[in-house]
C-alpha cells in the first residue's frame, strides 16, 4: 500500500474534477462522492501505515517516483512521493479529520444549492494538502502549498455574494502569497547551493554548506511557514478567514492548513540544524520569547537537541578563540554502512590517501570518513590530477555509482543509503563524474601536503564567474557548479549524437584517430546499460567526456 500512496492524492483530486465538470448533474449524489473520496484516501493512508509498521525502523521510508516533472538540463525534478513515518502521520491526520469534516458538511450544507461545489473544493483541499506532505522535493511541496492556498481561497470565499467574505478570501490568499515569496527564495538558495530541490539530496549535502547559506535558507523557509501557519507578522488573514462556512474553519484553520508550516519546518530539519541562528528565531517565536538571540547564546538549544551537540559547542568555542571556524567535527558523521558505498559519488575524505592529507583542520584525526557528494570533491581533485592512474580511478568512480543503482534495486535504499539523485539519471551520472574532473588541467600546483597551493586559481577570478560579472559576491568555491552546459544537453531518452560536421566523433568500435589507445576509454569503463539506446548514450558520453578531459580517451 505504501507504493500506492499516490492513490490518496488521486482519489480526492479525481472526485473534485468530476464534481466541478458535471455541475448540476451531480447535485443529487455529489456530496457522497466527496465523502467517499476522502474516506478512500484515509484507507490508503491506513494501509500504508500498516505496511510501514511491519518493516524494520530504518527501512520505513519509501520514495516512489511517478514521472519526471521538469527534465531540465540543470534542474531535474521528479514527481516523487515520499512515504516515511513523518508524512504518513500527517496523511492520517489530514484524511481522518478531513473525512469527519466531510461527513459533518453533508448536513451542514444541506440547504445550500451549491453543496456539490463545496464538496469539490473540500476534496481539492484534501488533495493539495496530501501532495504537500507527501512530496519528496521542495518544488512539488510548493505545488501542494499553493494548491492549499487556492483551495482555502475558494472555501473562505464560498459565500462570496457578501462582499466582505470575498475580501476575506482575497486577503487570505494574498497574505499567504507573501509567505510564498520565502519559499521561492529558499528554493533559489537551495538550487544555487545544492543543485537540486529534493529532500534527499539536500539532507545529504546540507552539512557541507556554509552556516550563512543555511541561515538565509532557513529564514526564507520561516517566512513561508509564518504565512501558512498564520504566525506574526503574517497572522492577519486568519481572523477574517472565519468568513467561510464553519466546516471550512474547522478543516483549514484548526486541523490541517496551519500545520503545513510546522510540517515544512520539520521536513527542513537538515537546513535548520546547520543554521543555529534561524533555529533560534524559530524557537523564540514559537514560545513568544522576547529575545530570540539570547535563547541560543545561553545554549538552551543544545540540551534540547540531545548530547550530540555538546561536542559541536566545544569545538566552536575552541575555534572562536583561534579566530577561525572550520567545519565542525560531528561524531554523528558515521561511515557509510555499506562498504561499497565507499566507492562512487560518495568518496570519503580519507579514501584516496592518508588522513593527514585531509583539509587542514585541527580535528582531522577525529574525523570519521563521511559521505560526500562527488561534486564537492575539492580536495580529492588535485591529488587525482597527479595520480598516474587517473583514468583507472575515474573508472572506479563510475563503477561505484553503478553498484548503488543495483543496491537500490534490491530494496536497500533506506534513508541513510540513498544515493545522490544525479546518479539515477543514467548517462548523466557519467557526465557528472566527468564534470568533477573536468578542470583538472587548470588546477594550480600542489603544496607539500598534497593540498592545492593557496594562490587564486584561474577560474576563481572575479570576471570569470557569472556572479562576479554581475558585481555580486561569488559563491563559495566549493559550491560552484561546473559549467556543464555543453555536456549536459540531453537525457536518457534523448542521447543521439548531434550531427556536427566540424567535430570528429568517435563511436564505439571505430578506430580512434591518432594511433593506439593507451588507456581504456571512458566509454568502455562504463558498464553497458541496455539495448540500442544505451550504446548511443555511451558514444555520446564519450564524446562529451573527451571534450571535457582532453587526453583521457
Amino acid at each position: 500500500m505504501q507504493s500506492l500512496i499516490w492513490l490518496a492524492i488521486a482519489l480526492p483530486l479525481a472526485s473534485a474534477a468530476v464534481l466541478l465538470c458535471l455541475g448540476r448533474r451531480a447535485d443529487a449524489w455529489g456530496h457522497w462522492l466527496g465523502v467517499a473520496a476522502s474516506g478512500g484516501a484515509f484507507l490508503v493512508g491506513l494501509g500504508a501505515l500498516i505496511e510501514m509498521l511491519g518493516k524494520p525502523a530504518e527501512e520505513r521510508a519509501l520514495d516512489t517516483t511517478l514521472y519526471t516533472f521538469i527534465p531540465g538540463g540543470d534542474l531535474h525534478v521528479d514527481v516523487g512521493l515520499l512515504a516515511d513515518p513523518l508524512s504518513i502521520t500527517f496523511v492520517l491526520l489530514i484524511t481522518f479529520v478531513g473525512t469527519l469534516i466531510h461527513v459533518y458538511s453533508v448536513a451542514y450544507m444541506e440547504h445550500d444549492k451549491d453543496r456539490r461545489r463545496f464538496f469539490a473544493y473540500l476534496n481539492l483541499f484534501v488533495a493539495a494538502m496530501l501532495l504537500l506532505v507527501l512530496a519528496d522535493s521542495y518544488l512539488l511541496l510548493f505545488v501542494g502549498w499553493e494548491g492549499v492556498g487556492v483551495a482555502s481561497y475558494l472555501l473562505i470565499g464560498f459565500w462570496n455574494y457578501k462582499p466582505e467574505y470575498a475580501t476575506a478570501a482575497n486577503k487570505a490568499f494574498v497574505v499567504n502569497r507573501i509567505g510564498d515569496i520565502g519559499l521561492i527564495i529558499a528554493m533559489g538558495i537551495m538550487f544555487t547551493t545544492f543543485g537540486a530541490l529534493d529532500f534527499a539530496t539536500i539532507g545529504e549535502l546540507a552539512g557541507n554548506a556554509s552556516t550563512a547559506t543555511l541561515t538565509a535558507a532557513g529564514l526564507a523557509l520561516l517566512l513561508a511557514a509564518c504565512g501558512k501557519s498564520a504566525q506574526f507578522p503574517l497572522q492577519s488573514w486568519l481572523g477574517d478567514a472565519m468568513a467561510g462556512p464553519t466546516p471550512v474553519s474547522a478543516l483549514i484553520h484548526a486541523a490541517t492548513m496551519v500545520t503545513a508550516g510546522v510540517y515544512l519546518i520539520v521536513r527542513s530539519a537538515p537546513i535548520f540544524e546547520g543554521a543555529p541562528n534561524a533555529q533560534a528565531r524559530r524557537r523564540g517565536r514559537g514560545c513568544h520569547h522576547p529575545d530570540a538571540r539570547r535563547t541560543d547564546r545561553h545554549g538552551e538549544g543544545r540540551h534540547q537537541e540531545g548530547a550530540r551537540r555538546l561536542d559541536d559547542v566545544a569545538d566552536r568555542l575552541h575555534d572562536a578563540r583561534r579566530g577561525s571556524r572550520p567545519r565542525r567535527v560531528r561524531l554523528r558523521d558515521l561511515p557509510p554502512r555499506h562498504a561499497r558505498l565507499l566507492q562512487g559519488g560518495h568518496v570519503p575524505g580519507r579514501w584516496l590517501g592518508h588522513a593527514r592529507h585531509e583539509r587542514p583542520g585541527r580535528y582531522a584525526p577525529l574525523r570519521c570518513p563521511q559521505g560526500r557528494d562527488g561534486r564537492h570533491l575539492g580536495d580529492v581533485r588535485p591529488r587525482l590530477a597527479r595520480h598516474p592512474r587517473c583514468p583507472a580511478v575515474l573508472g572506479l568512480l563510475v563503477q561505484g555509482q553503478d553498484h548503488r543503482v543495483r543496491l537500490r534495486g534490491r530494496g536497500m535504499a533506506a534513508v541513510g543509503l540513498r544515493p545522490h539523485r544525479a546518479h539515477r539519471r543514467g548517462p548523466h551520472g557519467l557526465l557528472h563524474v566527468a564534470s568533477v574532473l573536468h578542470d583538472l588541467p587548470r588546477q594550480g600546483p600542489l603544496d607539500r601536503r598534497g593540498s592545492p597551493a593557496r594562490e587564486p586559481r584561474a577560474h576563481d577570478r572575479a570576471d570569470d564567474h557569472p556572479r562576479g560579472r554581475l558585481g555580486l559576491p561569488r559563491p563559495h568555491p566549493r559550491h560552484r557548479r561546473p559549467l556543464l552546459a555543453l555536456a549536459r544537453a540531453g537525457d536518457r531518452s534523448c542521447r543521439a549524437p548531434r550531427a556536427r560536421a566540424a567535430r570528429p566523433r568517435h563511436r564505439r568500435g571505430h578506430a580512434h584517430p591518432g594511433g593506439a589507445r593507451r588507456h581504456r576509454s571512458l566509454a568502455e569503463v562504463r558498464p553497458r546499460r541496455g539495448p540500442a539506446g544505451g550504446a548511443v548514450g555511451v558514444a555520446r558520453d564519450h564524446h562529451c567526456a573527451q571534450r571535457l578531459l582532453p587526453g583521457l580517451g
Partner: protein
Amino acid sequence: MFPFLTVLVALPALGAALLWALPASALSRVREIALGITVVEAVLFVIMALQFDKCDAGAFQFSETYAWIPQIGTRRALGVNGIGLLMIALAVILVPLAILAAWREDKVPARRRHYLALVLLSQAFMVGIFAARDVFLFYVMFEAMLIPLYFLIGSFGGAQRRYAAVKFLLYSLVGGLIMLVAVVALYFVGPGGEQAFLTDNLTGTLDLTTTQERLMFLAFFLAFAIKAPMVPVHTWLPDVAENARPGTTALLVAVLDKIGTFGMLTLCITLFPAAADWAAPVIIVFAVISVIYGALLAIGQKDMMRLVAFTSVSHFGIMVLGIFAFQQTSVEGAALYMFNHGLSTGALFLLVGFLIARTGTADVNAYGGLQRIIPVFAGTFLVVGLSALSLPGLSPFVSEIMVLVGAYPVASVAVIISAVSVVLAALYILLTYKKVFTGPAPEAEPATARDLTLRERLVAWPLVGLMLLLGFVPAIAIDYLREPSADIVAHVTAEEANA
C-alpha cells in the same frame, strides 16, 4: 521531403488572397472558409511536429533553402528548432481560436472578409518569422508584418483605434529601422558570398571589434525590446489593447510580441554573445523594473484590456530576466514561458472580449456579482486568471519557477525583487475577479445573463485544457527546449571563457 514550412507559410497567405478574391455571392461563407484554412494549417503542423526529432531539437530541422537575392547573399532559408516549433504551435493554435472568438463581431460581410483576410495574412508572417533562418528574411517579415497589423488595429475596434494604430506603427518602425542599420552592417562585416545572412554562417564566425558588436547588439535589442514590450518602450501596448478588438489583441500579445523575446534568444544572443554578456546587468535591471512596474500599473487599471496588457509587461519582464541570466534552467524557463504566456494571456484577452461583447464595456467597476448568474463563465475566468498569477497545476507556474529558481545563482537580488510580483499578481487578478464576479447578484439583463455559449467554450476550454496538461506534465514541452537552450547558453559561456 515534403516542404512543410513553405506550405505552412504559404497556405494562410494564399488563403488571405482567396478571401479577397471571393465573389460577393460567397461572402456569407467567409468565416467557415477562413476557419477551414486555419484548421488545415493546424493539421499540417501536427503532422510536421510528429516528425520533428526532439532528440536533436537544438538543430534546425525541416530546413529548406532557396536562392532569393543572390546579389546580396540572402536566401529564403527556413527551418525550425525546438523553440521555433513551439512558437509556431502557438500561432497555429491561437489563430483559429481568435477567428472563432470573432465569429459574430462584424455584421457586414465585406468587413468580415477584410478582417479575416488580414488575420490570415498576419498568421503567414508569424509562421514565417519563427521559421526564418536568414537574418534578412527575418527582417523583411518583421517589417512586412506591420502592414496587416496596422490595418487590423486601425480599422477594427474602439473609438481611439486610429491613434493606437499610428502609435503602434511609429514605435515598431523606429525599432525596425534601427534594426535595418544593423542588418546592413551585418552584410559588410559578415562572410559575404551566397549565404551572407544565414544565421548558421554568422554564428560564432563574426570578426567584430568590441564597439561594433555592442552597437549591433543594441540595435537588434532595441527593436526586440519594443516588440516584447519592456519598460520604458512599452507604452504602445496598453493603448492598442484598449482600442483593438480582443481577438486582435490576443494574437498581438500572445504570439506577435513573442517575436521580441524569440529574437533576443535566437539573434541577439546567438550572433553577439559577448555584447549580450556585457549588456546583461543593465537589461536585467530593466527587466526587473518591467516586472514590478507592470504589475503595479495593472493593479491600478480600471479598463480590463489595459489591465491584461500591463500584466503582460510584467510577465515579459520575467522572460527577459530568464533569458539574460544565461543559465540553462532560466533560459529553458523563459522559452517555456513564451509558450505558456501565449496560452494564458490569449485566453484571458478572449474571455474579457466575451464579457465586453455582453455588456459593451471593459470598465471593471461596471460589473459585479456575475458568478451568481453566469457560474461557468466565472469558473473559466477564474481558472484562466489563476494561470496568469502562475498557480501550480497550470502551465505558467512551471516556467515562472524555472526562471526564478534558475536565475537565482547569478542574479539573486533581481530574483528576490521579482518574486514580489507573485504577490502583486495575486492582487491584480483576484481584485478584478472580486469586482466583476463576486458580490450580490445584479438584476439580470438578458444580454449579460448568457452563460458561456458553445462557441465560447470551444474557444476557452481547449486553452484551459492545454494549460492543465502542460501544468502537470511540462516535460512534453521542456523536451523541445532543453537542447536549444543549452546551445544558447553555450554561446555565452564560450565567450566568457575566451574573455
